[in-house]
């Protein structure tokens, strides 16, 4: 048993000593009853009877001492050690983290971590050694979901009925904007114990200069998008107008001839409308976004569909293009980026090394106006985004999670604004109230007898 404020024990001890003394030196007033012949009682008798040097009302004394002891323990913040976890740690291992080893070190610095979750798009329960191994990964492209990690943390406590209000939630993360959604703050608010954020450096905090000329897998905006196509390719036209309308000042569309090594110098995304080469795969493995979008789908590497038909449109989240698209082939398995209107995949993404390969099975008619439509341009912009989608590593403040803003990485329970009432406090306080009620009952019973 440990005490948060042992001074209260001393105070309770002094009060108890005073109570014992009061019971040793006590005066009692007899009961007052109507008695018509009181005038014949001799005068001069004292109204109070003084008792000294004798412990009186032992039962009452015991009840009072127990009540004081319980109050002292409650106010002293007595804690009974339990096996229940006192801390749940969520370690961010997503692409938003500049250095996974920093996350690992931060978790180790927390000391005893009975329950540790590593999370990116999903959360896995790991131990500290496994987290260290995760830190040795070369690159990570997955986007983190803090809400998914919080759900996993909540589920980890579902089987625990005791000590939930004392279990601390520690989030080791740069707290990037992209990993927070509308449910995150609510999930944090549901946590019954204290919550604190241990911040680590975000990947976006690296300067452009240190990123080098290689395509970045660390969240940098694409320095350039290149396309390898033959002739007047409609996607090239779309790409030219699409990147010209982006807000990134450094974004430019470069039209390169196939396999030009020098052209890879600043490109982060590459659209290959011709036959892909091994150099393309190697480039993607180093972190590039390789978009395999054959101009002639029929002779491409894509697999032919069992039945060919005409799709009435394509959609990528809120961007929808209505038109007739001959659906003859389908992309390889991977995360769906663009879907036909019937929900099947029209473009997928598959990780490859530090980068990724995106298969696009959308035929673009060079004659029609599809390539010039605004929604089609938006879909093309999505396809040339860095692996894992759009990145936003802007660090959020603690208030975004409903926590008070703190200068340090550690947030005390008082700073979180939550009333921390421990289970022991309730026990001892209730016991004190119970003893006081019993004392009252005993005292009243003695008076009426």
């Amino acid at each position, binding site marked *: 048993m440990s005490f948060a404020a042992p001074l209260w024990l001393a105070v309770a001890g002094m009060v108890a000593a005073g109570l014992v003394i009061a019971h040793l030196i006590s005066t009692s007033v*007899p009961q007052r009853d*109507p*008695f*018509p*012949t*009181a005038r014949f*009682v001799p005068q001069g008798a004292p109204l109070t*009877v003084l008792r000294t040097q004798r412990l009186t009302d032992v039962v009452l004394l015991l009840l009072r001492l127990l009540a004081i002891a319980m109050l002292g323990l409650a106010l002293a913040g007595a804690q009974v050690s339990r096996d229940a976890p006192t801390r749940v740690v969520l370690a961010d291992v997503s692409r938003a983290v500049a250095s996974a080893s920093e996350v690992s070190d931060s978790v180790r610095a927390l000391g005893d971590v009975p329950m540790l979750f590593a999370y990116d798009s999903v959360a896995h329960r790991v131990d500290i050694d496994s987290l260290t191994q995760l830190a040795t990964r070369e690159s990570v492209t997955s986007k983190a979901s803090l809400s998914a990690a919080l759900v996993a943390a909540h589920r980890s406590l579902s089987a625990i009925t005791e000590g939930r209000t004392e279990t601390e939630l520690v989030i080791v993360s740069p707290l990037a904007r992209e990993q927070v959604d509308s449910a995150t703050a609510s999930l944090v608010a549901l946590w019954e114990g204290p919550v604190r954020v241990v911040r680590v450096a975000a990947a976006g905090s690296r300067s452009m200069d240190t990123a080098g000329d290689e395509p970045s897998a660390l969240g940098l905006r694409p320095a350039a998008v290149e396309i390898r196509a033959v002739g007047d390719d409609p996607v090239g036209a779309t790409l030219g107008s699409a990147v010209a309308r982006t807000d990134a000042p450094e974004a430019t569309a470069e039209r390169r001839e196939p396999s030009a090594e020098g052209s890879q110098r600043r490109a982060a995304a590459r659209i290959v409308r011709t036959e892909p080469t091994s150099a393309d795969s190697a480039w993607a493995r180093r972190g590039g976004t390789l978009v395999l979008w054959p101009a002639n789908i029929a002779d491409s590497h894509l697999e032919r569909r069992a039945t060919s038909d005409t799709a009435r449109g394509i959609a990528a989240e809120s961007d929808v293009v209505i038109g007739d698209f001959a659906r003859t082939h389908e992309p390889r398995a991977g995360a769906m980026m663009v879907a036909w209107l019937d929900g099947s995949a029209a473009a997928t993404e598959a990780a490859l090394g530090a980068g990724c390969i995106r298969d696009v099975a959308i035929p673009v008619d060079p004659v029609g106006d599809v390539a010039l439509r605004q929604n089609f341009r938006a879909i093309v912009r999505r396809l040339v985004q860095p692996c894992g989608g759009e990145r936003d590593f802007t660090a959020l403040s603690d208030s975004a999670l409903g926590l008070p803003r703190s200068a340090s990485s550690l947030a005390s329970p008082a700073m979180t604004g939550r009333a921390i009432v421990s289970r022991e406090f309730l026990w001892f306080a209730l016991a004190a109230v119970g003893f006081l009620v019993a004392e009252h009952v005993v005292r009243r019973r003695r008076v009426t007898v």
Partner: protein
Amino acid sequence: MLRSGGGEGPLVQYAGLLDALTGLTWPSASRARAGDPGAHRSTRLGRSPEFTEYRAYRPGDDLRRLDWKLYGRTDRPFLRIANDHAALRTAIVVDASASMRFPVDGYGKWEHACAIALGLTAIAIAEGDAAGVVVAGANGDRTIPPRRRRDVLIDLADMFAAVTPAGSASIADTLIRAAAQPRLVVISDFLGSAERAIPALRVAAASGSEIFAVHVAAEAELDPPARTFIADDPEEPGMQRPLSADNRDAYLAAFAEWRSTIASALHGMNASYVLTSTAEPVRDAVRRVVAGHAAMPGDTGS
């Protein structure tokens, strides 16, 4: 015959007492003053059939009372003397001061006094006497004038049920107003009123009234509980004295001496004094009153 009032009235609780007192008489200790015909011997010698004695004629005597047959035989004039009988108006004064409400819960002095008053009234009415009751309370007297009809018992029970003893009323004024009655009964604990009640009774005795003083005491007053408590006089709020085993004997002695003083004063005016406890059956107390026995059974008079 009692007027019909249903069987649920306050008088019902006294039914057993009235049954127990059936046949009791309450003869006057002295000759009653002339008045309505009744069961008590009158001071007046009349012409009733009940012969008493002959007396020699004295000039001025009523010649209608001369026994002419005796005059013929003896040639001396004698008057035939016969006792007359008169009724005795009875007034019962019941003390309703706060001290009579003890014990507060249960059967107390007030209930005991009411039962005694009703029993005496019933006996008096049964003998043909007119009987009335005055309840002396803090808010004035509540009076039932002397009547001979038995339904006065119903009114009496109703009045007792409606009265709650309170205050510190003195019965002295009530006794003075009732002093003209030939028979005056006072039922009281005499606490707080003895100093004025005794002279008032003395006035009544001097005027020829037959005085009966029934001193009602609670069992707890005669034998206080052994525990220690603060005795709080209901009639004197400031009087609070602790009664314990240490001063219990002194209390008993003082109380007994006070009762003895009252008894002596009443005996001095040729009044009947009866001390009764709430522990004593009412019928026994009433019997002792009408028989003129002062002491309770087992009472040593201390």
